[in-house]
């Protein structure tokens, strides 16, 4: 394929993408002429250029479309639903020809007559009105047909179009955009990313090597800064706004809502959120799937919604936002939600879990079952989608790129699917672990927590069922996988008494297990290098990386390890845990609490409000009048001592206490405690007889526990004075 044709294909695709966006907008605002002008321009440019390149089939189709669009643009036809459908068909027709050209180098044989006929029919109301239409069609044909003598290059054709339209402003904008942007081959960007990764590694090594030499330190610090900037710029070059995917959604929603007879308003938020191009590609299918599901099973038909007292028009919200080093993409509908009971019975029926196990799972955990392969609420399968069908594929696809999927649903209120996507694939945060005398990198995406097993406890904490090692993690049994035994078959899985051991609790593909390693090193940002097929086939490593000290390390694949070790899908990938207590009432209200011991008395702090847990000597606590305060990162923190922890250690300046730093509204407060006991899910308690929810207490591990009232901690100064200060502090803490 020659350069000109390739250029034409790219430009036409972009034009058609624009056209698609405009068409769906047009349906909502049919009177907006700028949209029509834009659509007309896209089709016109294609027609002009095809004539020159000799794609007759494409030209004929574009011409038919242009005639219709001409009438619309002149206001002689109104953009009705049927016309928009016709134009969308035209769009699909043009796209399919372009695809054929791209794949085979020629237009191929296709039957466009029907479509052309249909486009002509749509012009009928005007055409039958009088002689004028003939004039119109000749006018547009004569101006836009390629000049017979010297075939102009594509830009000339579009200039002609512009003159014809007399709408020069948008075109001028497009021109300036063309001057300030450049098309770059993705391969080149990939190579640049690779080289930058290499530079990052070299920099790490230079930094380590020059740390001792003061003359070099300055230089290496400069190198450090430039490298970081360069890395960011190259990463940015690979970024594309999510609008690239979001813009496809109005069309999908439109088509589906017509097929399924739904009324849906689509809201797009955070369209400029940027994501690495390859990741954007990777989430396209899962996202489309989620949107289909939301329309098919989430949003009810209008009459059902009305009967339920809802707006007959459903709302589908697509939201993208960056959160730290992740991008969150949410698909939320206000439809029927998912019935947990149905999931439970279906999962038992399919033999995915046992009835006993199902009874133990919380509502949130049950919801996650729809991600299991083979889960499908068959009664609901339609041609469009079946809720659950392919949800496992959605999760697999998202986890493949280091992301996570969560689902939230309330019956009658709606469903929210949340995708958590890392910003980039090439550089990932990882924890370096040691085993069999080597370093391995464990991607932090799969890591949920670390457990340290001190030498003196090593023998006692591992329990066995036959030869399956287990660890009791907050009352639940966690299957263990010994990395050394996995890597060196035949090695004895025993915890050597004189060594520290670490259990990395991993969540991968819905499998939860503990990986026992010999040691931990620092977390590092690692650059992922691909492995040769021979080593990939081993099935334990997803790549290799070069560490800051210049050593190589293999990157472990948690999912593959789980599979190799035979860890079964638990259907409990979520971190929400229950500690055996019965569930009272609506367990969706169950929250997690930090269980603390305050001078011998147990109390609970809502985990969501906890920012930090600081262990410090009691001498760090100072007093303003009688109020204990803590100088915490340059800010004064009021410390609550309702539990009498400070009083209990008074006169012993060596004593250490724990301060739980919490968020309370717009400010931060500290709670003095003796020590932190555990994290547990608490459930609401109800007053006997009244069935009123009691406040201030919760049921934790079958014990009634008081919840610390953070709001009761008095501020130090006037609220007005402090708010700004606390806000500022909130920034620094984050």
């Amino acid at each position, binding site marked *: 394929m020659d350069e000109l044709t390739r250029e034409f294909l790219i430009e036409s695709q972009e034009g058609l993408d624009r056209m698609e966006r405009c068409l769906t907008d047009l349906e909502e605002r049919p009177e907006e002429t700028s949209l029509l002008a834009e659509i007309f321009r896209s089709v016109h440019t294609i027609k002009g250029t095809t004539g020159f390149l000799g794609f007759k089939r494409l030209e004929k189709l574009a011409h038919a479309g242009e005639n219709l669009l001409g009438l619309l643009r002149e206001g002689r036809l109104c953009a009705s639903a049927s016309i928009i459908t016709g134009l969308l068909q035209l769009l699909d027709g043009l796209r399919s020809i372009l695809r054929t050209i791209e794949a085979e180098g020629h237009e191929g044989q296709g039957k466009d007559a029907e479509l052309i006929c249909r486009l002509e029919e749509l012009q009928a109301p005007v055409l039958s009105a009088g002689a004028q239409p003939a004039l119109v069609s000749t006018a547009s044909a004569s101006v836009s047909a390629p000049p017979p003598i010297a075939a102009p290059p594509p830009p000339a054709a579009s200039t002609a179009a512009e003159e014809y339209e007399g709408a020069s402003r948008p075109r001028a904008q497009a021109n300036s955009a063309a001057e300030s942007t450049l098309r770059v081959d993705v391969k080149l960007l990939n190579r640049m990313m690779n080289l930058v990764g290499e530079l990052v590694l070299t920099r790490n090594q230079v930094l380590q090597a020059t740390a001792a030499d003061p003359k070099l330190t300055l230089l290496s610090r400069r190198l450090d800064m430039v490298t970081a900037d360069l890395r960011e710029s190259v990463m940015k070059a690979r970024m594309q706004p999510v609008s690239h995917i979001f813009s496809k959604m109005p069309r999908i929603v439109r088509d589906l809502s017509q097929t399924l007879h739904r009324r849906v308003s689509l809201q797009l938020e955070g369209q400029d959120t940027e994501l690495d191009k390859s990741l954007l590609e990777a989430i396209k299918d899962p996202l489309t799937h989620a949107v289909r599901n939301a329309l098919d099973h989430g949003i009810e038909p209008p009459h059902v919604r009305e009967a339920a007292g809802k707006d007959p028009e459903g709302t589908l919200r697509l939201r993208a936002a960056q959160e730290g080093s992740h991008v969150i993409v949410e698909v939320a509908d206000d439809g029927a939600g998912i019935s947990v009971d149905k999931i439970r019975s279906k999962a038992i029926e399919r033999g995915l879990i046992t009835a006993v196990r199902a009874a133990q799972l919380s509502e949130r955990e049950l919801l996650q079952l729809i991600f299991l392969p083979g889960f499908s609420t068959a009664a609901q399968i339609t041609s469009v989608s079946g809720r659950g069908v392919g949800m496992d594929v959605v999760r697999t696809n998202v986890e493949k790129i280091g992301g996570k999927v969560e689902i939230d649903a309330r019956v009658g209120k709606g469903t929210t699917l949340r995708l958590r996507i890392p910003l980039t694939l090439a550089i990932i945060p990882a924890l370096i672990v040691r085993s069999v005398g080597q370093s391995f990198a464990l991607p932090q995406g799969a890591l949920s927590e670390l457990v340290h097993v001190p030498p003196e406890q090593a023998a006692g904490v591992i329990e066995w069922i036959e030869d399956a090692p287990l660890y009791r993690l907050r009352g639940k049994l966690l299957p263990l996988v010994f990395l050394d035994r996995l*890597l060196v078959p035949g090695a004895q899985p025993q915890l050597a008494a004189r060594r520290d051991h670490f259990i990395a609790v991993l969540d991968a593909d819905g499998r939860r297990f503990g990986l026992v390693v010999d040691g931990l090193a620092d977390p590092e940002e690692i650059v992922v290098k*691909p*492995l040769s097929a*021979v080593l990939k086939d081993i099935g334990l*490593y997803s790549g290799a990386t070069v560490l800051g000290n210049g050593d*190589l390390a293999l990157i472990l694949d948690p999912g593959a390890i789980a599979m190799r070790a035979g860890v079964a899908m638990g259907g409990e990938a979520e971190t929400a845990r229950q500690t055996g207590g019965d569930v009272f009432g609506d367990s969706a209200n169950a929250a997690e609490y930090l269980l603390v011991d305050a001078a011998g008395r147990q109390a609970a702090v809502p985990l969501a409000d906890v920012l930090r847990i600081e262990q410090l000597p009691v001498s760090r606590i100072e007093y303003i009048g009688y109020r204990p305060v803590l100088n915490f990162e340059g800010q004064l923190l009021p410390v609550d001592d309702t539990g009498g922890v400070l009083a209990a250690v008074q006169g012993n300046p060596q004593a250490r206490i724990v301060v739980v730093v919490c968020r309370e509204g717009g400010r931060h407060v500290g709670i003095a405690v003796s020590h932190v006991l555990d994290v547990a899910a608490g459930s609401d308690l109800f007053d006997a007889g009244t069935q009123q929810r009691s406040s201030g207490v919760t049921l934790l591990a079958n014990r009634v526990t008081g919840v610390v009232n953070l709001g009761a901690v008095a501020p130090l100064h006037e609220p007005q004075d402090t708010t700004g200060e606390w806000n500022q502090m909130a920034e620094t803490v984050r």
Partner: protein
Amino acid sequence: MSAQATALHRREKSASALVEICSVRLGPGLFGVPIRHIVEIIGSARPHPVPLAPGFVGGLLHYRGDVLTTVSLRRLLGLPRVDQPMDTLILESPAGCFGLLVDSVVEVLTLPAADHEPNPSTLDDNRKDLFAGAYKLKGSLLVMLDPQRLDPIRLGAARAA
């Protein structure tokens, strides 16, 4: 592939009478690798071991931004393991570069192409697959290695089959 290799040799013979060969030592034996397949020679490397890898894999090597798989000629030929740094030849293959671990690189020889003879028919089939004939040196034979046949991906596939 072997037909291709023979064609290559024939062309060499007709085009120029001389061939440049890098000779390497492995235990008692002397082996040769055509120099035009060698990208670079790295001295005294200690490749990073890969647990559970196939036997012929000598480990991983960081080479110009890539992590290369290396093939241990010792293990491939069933010689005992020695604990000492090895010289590594970085070789080109259609699937990318890989490393070949040898005891030491000796020298680059320029030999007349006419001195080349194909594998003897009595050679073990296993070896026939790895070797590409030999050059007759004064008093000894230089056994030729075909880099294409040493590609870890090919070796892995052969091992699986």
